[in-house]
């Protein structure tokens, strides 16, 4: 660190954070204007509430609903961290046999939509599911315990969301300075206490970010909780819309859900802690010696294998089984490419738009902490906490009445995806900006370059991977999105998700199977990009 840098480090402590440029403020306000649409709609509907709607909401049942939903979200988050962190550590730091292959396999469940996954779980592991049928002949098992309800919702959500934690934490581990673990070992701490007292706390930001995505997913998910018949908040909201056709209580419930999401956000900000995680210095490009698992090799392989079995192989097997049965029964299974193209187009556009919208927000969060930033950041998360139908109806209302030229057009679908999934793009970008640190930019500018030039030549390449990761996550999630797509798509426009729905809604699983497989196959591509990103960050240079 030069004297100048040292002096500025001193100044940094006493001065408030640098003021954000006007362009940055304007850009983030523009993004917020779109993000606020669902909230404005909900406020509008909630304002119509009369005493009876309030009566409907303010009763013990709602308290239970809240507790149940929070309980589910908390349990799923803890479990996803408990599964995702060890897997990330095993596949990045140890000599686990085939660890690269495992890294891809255990992240693949991310591409399975939770409604498809939950359906497959029931079909496979239900009381009289495929597993029972396999066991019946040899063991005489007549029925397995019922998995619906809390256990089912908990298992399904955990299995299909832990990859968020796995991916973010894997990247976090790769970005970690391995010397701090050595330092701890040299200070008389065993491998285990080192993991607990140094590695885990240093990974707190990535664990918190992954946990946040999981927690909010569990709050807004409808597919898995409804298939597993667990009465959560989203189910109550859907019931108001679908059973009672009453928008006002639905809006009140949705606002409460937003409140829950904000509470989760505050928790996450606490969890991020005081520490800063700019990687110190130039970053030692030292080879990390893989940790020998020894007698733990087999238990580790069993862990990876069983997660893959339940989260990936099981659902895939069920889908393939349906497909084969459909062919055998002569069901007319046409594989048209139009829905695949449709999915690709909207999901790619959403990925690009989300990264562009996330940039100003990520930058504010990484560089200009303060009240304004906190409000912007929290607002940007509200869409992610809402069930798709709520955000979709908000856009139905505003677009059909005030922007009919936009209504039922592809751009509106893309906007809705951005509102729903923005945080998935913000998180990795923020991480990249934090890891790069502000000094790099200052160095560029000190060399007499303009702000624009520094952005293009220094910042852009350094955060490209973060942006790519964000784009890939948004792409994946958009590919799977159903409720908003159904309500907002142009008439006659199909995506793979709507094709799955078309088949499943008619009870024709074999018709849903083909698009489901195609969806998973297509999603595997951006997923590969994500996993590669983690791999590439490992710089193989022999020590000294």
């Amino acid at each position: 660190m030069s004297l100048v840098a040292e002096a500025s480090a001193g100044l940094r402590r006493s001065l408030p954070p640098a003021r954000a440029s006007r362009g940055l403020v304007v850009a983030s306000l523009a993004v917020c204007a779109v993000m606020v649409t669902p909230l404005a709609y909900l406020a509008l509907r909630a304002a119509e509430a009369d005493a009876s709607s309030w009566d409907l909401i303010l009763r013990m049942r709602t308290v239970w609903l809240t507790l149940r939903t929070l309980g589910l979200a908390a349990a799923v988050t803890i479990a996803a961290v408990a599964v995702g962190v060890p897997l990330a550590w095993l596949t990045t730091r140890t000599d686990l046999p085939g660890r690269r292959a495992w890294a891809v396999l255990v992240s693949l469940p991310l591409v399975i939509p939770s409604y498809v996954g939950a359906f497959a779980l029931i079909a496979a592991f239900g009381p009289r599911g495929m597993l029972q049928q396999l066991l019946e002949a040899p063991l005489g098992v007549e029925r397995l315990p019922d998995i619906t309800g809390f256990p089912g919702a908990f298992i399904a959500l955990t299995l299909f969301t832990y990859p968020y934690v796995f991916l973010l934490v894997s990247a976090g581990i790769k970005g970690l300075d391995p010397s701090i673990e050595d330092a701890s070992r040299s200070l008389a701490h065993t491998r285990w206490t080192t993991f607990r007292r140094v590695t885990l706390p240093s990974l707190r930001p990535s664990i918190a970010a992954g946990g946040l995505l999981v927690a909010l997913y569990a709050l807004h998910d409808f597919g898995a909780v409804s298939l597993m018949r667990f009465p959560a908040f989203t189910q109550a909201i859907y019931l108001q819309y679908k059973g009672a056709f009453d928008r006002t209580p639905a809006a009140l419930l949705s606002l409460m859900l937003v409140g829950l999401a904000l509470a989760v956000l505050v928790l996450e900000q606490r969890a991020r802690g005081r520490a800063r995680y700019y990687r110190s210095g130039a970053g030692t490009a030292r080879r990390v010696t893989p940790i020998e698992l020894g007698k733990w090799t087999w238990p580790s392989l069993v862990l990876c294998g069983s997660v893959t079995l339940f989260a990936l192989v099981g659902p895939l097997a069920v889908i393939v089984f349906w497909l084969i049965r459909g062919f055998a029964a002569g069901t007319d299974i046409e594989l048209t490419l139009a829905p695949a193209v449709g999915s690709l187009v909207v999901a790619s556009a959403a990925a690009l738009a989300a990264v562009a919208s996330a940039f100003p927000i990520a930058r504010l969060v990484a560089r200009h902490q303060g009240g304004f930033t906190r409000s912007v950041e929290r607002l940007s998360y509200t869409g992610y906490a809402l069930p798709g139908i709520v955000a979709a109806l908000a856009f139905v209302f505003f677009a059909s009445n005030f922007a009919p030229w936009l209504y039922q057009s592809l751009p509106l679908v893309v906007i809705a995806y951005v509102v729903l999934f923005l945080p998935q793009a913000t998180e990795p970008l923020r991480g990249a900006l934090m890891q790069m640190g502000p000094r790099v930019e200052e160095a560029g500018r000190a060399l007499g370059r303009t702000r624009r030039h520094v952005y293009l030549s220094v910042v852009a390449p350094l955060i490209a991977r973060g942006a790519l990761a964000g784009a890939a996550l948004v792409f994946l999630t958009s590919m799977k999105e159903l409720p908003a797509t159904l309500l907002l798509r142009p008439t006659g426009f199909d995506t793979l998700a709507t094709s799955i729905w078309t088949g499943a809604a008619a009870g024709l699983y074999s018709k849903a199977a083909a698009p489901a497989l195609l969806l998973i196959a297509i999603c595997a591509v951006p997923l590969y990009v994500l996993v590669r990103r983690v791999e590439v960050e490992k710089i193989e240079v022999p020590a000294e």
Partner: protein
Amino acid sequence: MKLRKLIGTAAAAALVLGLAGCGDDATPAGATEPDDDAGASLTVYSGRDEEFVGPLYEQFETDTGITLDVRYGDSAELAATIMEEGDSSPADVFVSQDAGSLGAVAAEGLLAQIDQEILDRVDERFRSSEGTWVGLSGRARVAAYNTDELTEADLPDSILGFTDPQWKGRIGFAPTNSSFQAFVAGMIATEGEDATREFLEGLVANDPRLYEDNSSTVRGVAAGEIEVGFVNHYYKYEVAAEDGEIPVENHFFTGGDPGALVNAAGAGILTSSKDPDAATRLLDYLTGEQGQTYFAEETWEYPVVDGYAPAVELVALDDIESPEIDLSDLAGTLEPALDLLAEVGLL
């Protein structure tokens, strides 16, 4: 943006001219000459699945030359969409799986009066008393049972019989599904809230297996997970068409039993429709020969127009004696039904 506005205006102008042209030539409903509405197009929000009604819509296009832009979705979600769109709705016709969704949209004043001639064709039970929607097909609630485990004689005459402890662990249904909720709403309307609560508590005491929807309930019966499932009558045929032969038969409740509710899938024309005449032709078609025959033969439902009979062996509607309820009003009793379901722990 300017360009878009220009295109929008031009399109609107073209539309108006087109409409004017159609209006001049409008022919009385019921006519079937293929080309008088040629060039007209309708936007249909269809809560009925493409799998089942798609071919019928296509046939309509061929027969009349009217183009249909069909937007498929869940009936209730489409109803919610129409309610949000209000007068700006691009839809002309709303086709729904159930009367409740139509009733909800009608209650917002968004459905127009339907041609009396069409209304009159349809059994009074299966249309709106205000004339805002008309039934297209009827579906009866039944107890689908596993024929390997049970015979018709084992089953009670009334659905209330299933509260008997002997059915413990043997029954199942889909409480989140609107067809089950409509049945509960109907029961509240005819039997009162206390009797309905007692019935539901009796069911709960028998430890029912709960399903996501009707077809998985039928699959549960077929797989032997349960012996009896409360579903709509045609799911047995749908599942059999997909899975092949299944050991499932329908047990109908008759004589005005509370379990005997016959609901209707129906359609209505939106007040905001830009081409009510073409929309009327669609309703005419669906309640006409092609439509009624199609529902009888292809979706295994009850035709709702005199002179058409079910294509599969179903208990006659007259024998079922579905409770006397205005199906549009079911939307009104849904709220207490949901409360009750939640109260007994089924939601």
